[in-house]
């Protein structure tokens, strides 16, 4: 058993599951976005704003944002533990990454629900 304090779920099993589920959600969201843009070639502000004013789209988008945040945390945490061996450097980079993810997530929620 290896002790962890900065990983997302504190457990390899939960991180592994979260990584796969969030990947699935992001894949569906990406396919939807690409499909929507392809089928709406003459897209204007009104249509775009209308899409994002629908409650289901806001929930779907928020789900994708949260998935992206979790996915990035798990993935970047793994990269830092592989390549950054000095503890102080590794923890510092991990904290910067986690802080950035938090800021981007809150910012995303503000963009989504604020308008």
């Amino acid at each position, binding site marked *: *058993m*290896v*002790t*962890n304090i900065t990983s997302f779920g504190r457990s*390899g099993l939960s*991180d592994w*599951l979260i990584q796969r589920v969030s990947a699935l959600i992001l894949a569906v969201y990406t396919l939807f976005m690409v499909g929507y843009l392809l089928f709406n070639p003459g897209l204007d502000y009104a249509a775009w704003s209308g899409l994002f004013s629908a409650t289901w789209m806001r929930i779907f988008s928020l789900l994708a944002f949260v998935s992206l945040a979790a996915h990035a945390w798990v993935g970047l*945490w793994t990269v830092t533990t592989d390549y950054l061996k000095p503890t102080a450097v590794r923890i510092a980079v991990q904290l910067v990454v986690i802080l950035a993810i938090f800021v981007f997530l809150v910012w995303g929620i503000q963009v989504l629900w604020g308008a």
Partner: protein
Amino acid sequence: MLQVSVYRYNPETDSAPYMQEFQVDTQGRDVMVLDVLHMMKEQDNGLAYRRSCREGVCGSDGMNMNGKNGLACITPLSEVVKNGKLTLRPLPGLPVVRDLVVDMGLFYKQYERIQPYLQNDTPAPAIERLQSPEDRDKLDGLYECILCACCSTSCPSFWWNPDKFVGPAGLLQAYRFLADSRDEATRERLAELEDPFSVFRCRGIMNCVSVCPKGLNPTRAIGKIREMLLANAT
């Protein structure tokens, strides 16, 4: 003439490792790499490597031959030599003791960690603990491992975290005891493996499967451990 390039390093006399060139006359025969090493040792008896059974059973002579790990004793030249050249290096990722001999300490430490022995507190029956043929079949493809370390030392996850990631060889043995119907420590074993490193540092690139001289599949065993962890979790 076969041109062989060998990694040489004697920490007592060399400041840094270097490659030494040998010309070996195999008289056109397709011998094993270990035979070529013997011929080289006749030219320079300072060359150090491990060997014992010379027939792929003991797992002593694991090394990196033209970039791929394997057992020198059961690897014919025709399988590895390209353009009449052969490059021999020690197993990657482990500290070199001398020439092709590596310190397997970290590898054995990970093996020890998974408690590679049967754990059963039920008093043993008069004769022996019986297993059904079906339960016995579950151990096929697991018990044959000879701990040559070819798989673990070809695994980048083991290179980066040899102190935390158990590695393919250790995990194959971990599953060997998880799958054993006579073992009673399944829960304790799984609890030791659920952190982000021990099992989950495996990225499934299957280098281990590609190099295993016994044709075993550690990646499949790791997948089975994940399934067991998932089935045991809430």
